[in-house]
């Protein structure tokens, strides 16, 4: 088989694969990531509700609001950390399993230098990976 024929075949395979993949994705659009609270989030929120409801009767709505705000902030941080992790780390390799926190701190510092992560990305990723 000539070189031109091989290259033409390879080109056709690439084009047809791309078309098939795009058609497949249009039929099955990806779910919006993090659009719904996860089961863990719901558990955390429920725990917050329980904590405030079982505390002293004098607990007012402000305290309840503070706890809920803290829970939501915690969730926002986790979602943001996961997003930063997938955006930055996923550029080169798969998501690794989580390691012990102090080992993770070393690895994230290493990747900060290697992958030139921003300071903010590093902190959010470290938080996400050590939760």
């Amino acid at each position, binding site marked *: 088989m000539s070189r031109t024929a*091989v290259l033409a075949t*390879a080109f056709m395979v690439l084009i047809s694969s791309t078309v098939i993949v*795009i058609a497949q994705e249009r039929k099955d659009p*990806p779910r919006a990531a993090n659009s719904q609270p996860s089961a863990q989030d719901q558990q955390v929120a429920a725990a917050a509700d329980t904590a405030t409801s079982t505390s002293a009767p004098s607990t007012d709505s402000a305290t309840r609001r503070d706890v809920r705000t803290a829970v939501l902030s915690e969730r926002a941080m986790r979602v943001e950390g996961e997003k930063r992790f997938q955006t930055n780390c996923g550029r080169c390799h798969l998501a*690794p399993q989580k390691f012990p926190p102090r080992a993770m*701190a070393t690895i994230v*510092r290493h990747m900060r230098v290697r992958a030139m992560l921003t300071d*903010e990305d590093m902190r959010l990723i470290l*938080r996400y990976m*050590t939760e």
Partner: protein
Amino acid sequence: MALPPLLTKDDVGYFRAILLALSARKSRVTRTLYAAALLALLVLPTLLFAQCPDSQASSAPPPESQTPDSQDIKPIPVLQTSAGFISTFDGGEPHLGPILTPVLLVPIGQRWLFETRATFESDLTQEPGLSGFHGTLQKEVEYAQLDFIANPYMTVTVGRFLTPFGIYNERLYPVWIRNLATDPLTLPIGVGPSNASTGAMVRGGFRANSKFNINYAAYYSVLSTVSPVDSSRFAGGRVGIFVPKARLEIGGSFQHLLQDDHSNLFGFHLIWQPRALPLDIRAETARSSTGSGYWVESAYRLSRLPFARNEFRRTQLVARMQQFYTGTVPSDSVLPVNTNMFEFGVNYYFRDDFRALTSYGRQFSPEGNANVWTVGITYRLVVPLGNGEVQ
């Protein structure tokens, strides 16, 4: 009465030689100054840009105020090892390639990190008249560097480090990361002997505004002929712009050789991960006096197929096309003839750190076309050297 000439022919020749030597010296000094000015130009704007308070504007929650605990985690030394066994059939000739790459990370305080990576590998082939496969063990210190995190925008590195020219050498080279077992044809361009530099480097990344980040590296390497830590004398830099929302990074590399032909090298790179698809697209181009070329690689994870999801989500299809053109200056580190190559591969991830990979490639060159088959496994292991839990 005729006066004797002030300068004889010999005197003129002597002074001409001195002038030539001076001009050559001046040229060398000028080039060094140009290189220093280029480094300053690369680094200063990024630092100034980073110092601007508006550049840190972000829609994300302010992490420093909300994540005090991440600062309290005291890091411990970590040993990471990646291992692989790659069998290659290049033009019908079998090669067995065991490789072991330990990486040692030693954090010192809150701002320092010592990191080193060594590689032990072999290329075992069949030799006429002998049974089995034979080869020698190659040992190499790929990097041994001390990093000082000076501020959120800049890290200073000294020692032996991977040359940041393009993206493959620094980010995609480890055997457990690369999608195809074979190196790109343009890999030797711009990275120096043994893919590393010996000298100093400043680098960093920062959020330029809410839409994109900037990362940069500027380095200077000295000449070293001591094997296996040899390096060339050059200076260069790399700048990249990363758009998190689009998951797109584009960037360029520049290098000026301060030895041999004192030539300039250029490179450009691209990484794109479309949000709608589990697809990675990477591309790199390099141009130098010893050769030029490019490679384009795409990798698609079959995680969206409606059947056999558990098996297909672990499967990745890879394709890479590359072309290499010889340059005006011959070099042993690059191919001697123009070469085209395309490869297709299938990877299967048993876990995130353990996978099997296989590929087929066809290489076209005036020296003869050849099929290149590879099959292998890669594994990565992380060992914390101490108590990993927070006290």
